[in-house]
C-alpha cells in the first residue's frame, strides 16, 4: 500500500525526475476526483492506472473512497490491485469539494471515450465547477469510456472552455484532440 501525504507532492520542481512528476500528477488527479465525486462510498472513477505490470499498461480504473470527515482518501486499481491512501489533501488546490458541502446538482449522463476524458482532464483553463464535472467522471460499465454527469448549461460551459483552449493551442496534435473533445460535447448537446 502506498501511503502518501499530498503536501509532499504539491511543490515538486519541474526538473524533478519523471517518475516523481508522474506520481505527483497522479496523486493530484486522485484527490481531485475523490473530492469532486461522492463522499462516503466507493466509486469507480474514469482515471486510469499508471502502472505497467509485466511491461504492459494496466487497463484498470481507480476505485476511490473519501470518508465523510477529513481522513485519508483511499484509492485502488480495480485490475492490478495497486492501492494507497492520501492524507494532507484538505485545502490544497486539488481539493475540489464544494464550499459548505453542498451536493452536486443533478444532470444527464454524457458518455465520452477515454481519450476525450483524458483531454478534458488536461485542460488548463477550467473553472472549479467545470473541473468538478471533469474529475467526477466515472468509468462506464464497458470499461472503455467515461460518463460525465452534467446539465445542458454545464455542457455548454465545458464546451466553451475546450473551444477557448483549442483556439489558443499552438500544438496541432493537442488542438486536434481538443477539437475532437469539442465535437463530442457538441454532439451530446445536440442529442
Amino acid at each position: 500500500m502506498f501511503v502518501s501525504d499530498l503536501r509532499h507532492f504539491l511543490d515538486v520542481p519541474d526538473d524533478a525526475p519523471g517518475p516523481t512528476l508522474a506520481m505527483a500528477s497522479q496523486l493530484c488527479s486522485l484527490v481531485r476526483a475523490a473530492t469532486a465525486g461522492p463522499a462516503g462510498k466507493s466509486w469507480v472513477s474514469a482515471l486510469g492506472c499508471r502502472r505497467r505490470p509485466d511491461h504492459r499498461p494496466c487497463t484498470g480504473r481507480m476505485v476511490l473512497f473519501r470518508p465523510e470527515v477529513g481522513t485519508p482518501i483511499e484509492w485502488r486499481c480495480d485490475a492490478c490491485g495497486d492501492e494507497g491512501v492520501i492524507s494532507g489533501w484538505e485545502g490544497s488546490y486539488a481539493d475540489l469539494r464544494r464550499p459548505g458541502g453542498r451536493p452536486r446538482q443533478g444532470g444527464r449522463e454524457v458518455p465520452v471515450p477515454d481519450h476525450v476524458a483524458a483531454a478534458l482532464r488536461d485542460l488548463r483553463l477550467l473553472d472549479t465547477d467545470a473541473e468538478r464535472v471533469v474529475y467526477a467522471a466515472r468509468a462506464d460499465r464497458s470499461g472503455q469510456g467515461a460518463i460525465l454527469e452534467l446539465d445542458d448549461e454545464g455542457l455548454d460551459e465545458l464546451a466553451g472552455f475546450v473551444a477557448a483552449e483549442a483556439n489558443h493551442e499552438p500544438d496541432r496534435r493537442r488542438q486536434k484532440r481538443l477539437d475532437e473533445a469539442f465535437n463530442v460535447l457538441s454532439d451530446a448537446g445536440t442529442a
Partner: protein
Amino acid sequence: MIVRATARTRALVGRPDPEAIALAASGDDWYANVIWIEGRKCLLVTHADTLFSVFAPDVRAWQGLPADALGVLDPGRTIIAKTADRKVLGCMNDLAFTCERAAADDGGLAYLDVDRLHHHLHRNLNSTRGYLPAIDLAHDRARRAGHP
C-alpha cells in the same frame, strides 16, 4: 437573422427552431451567451465573421407578458439555433473573461463603463481573425457592401 444561442441563452429565449438544425454555420450568424457577473445575468452577443461584440449588463427576462403582446417587434424573423463554430465560442469565452475583469476593475457591475468596454471589445485582437480588430473587419464588410 440566425442567433446561435448557448444552452443558458436558450433557457431565456426559448428552444431552437427545429428547422434551424439543418442550417449550416455562416459568417453572418450571431452568437449569444449569458454570463453571470456578481449574480446578475449579462448578455454577450458576437457576430461570427467579425467577432464584433455587444455586451448588455444585468439583463432581465421578460416578466409576465408573451413575446408578441406589443405586436411583432421584429419584422424580420429571427431564428434561434444552437451554437456551431468552435472558434467563435472559444473567442466568446475569452471575451466573457474580459467583461468580467472590466466589471471588477470598474468597482462592480453597477459602475461598469459599458462604452469603454465596447471600445475595448471592438479593438480586441484575435488570432482566429488574423489579429485584425473586430471594428476593422466590420468596416471592411461595410465597404464591400458598397457603404462609403
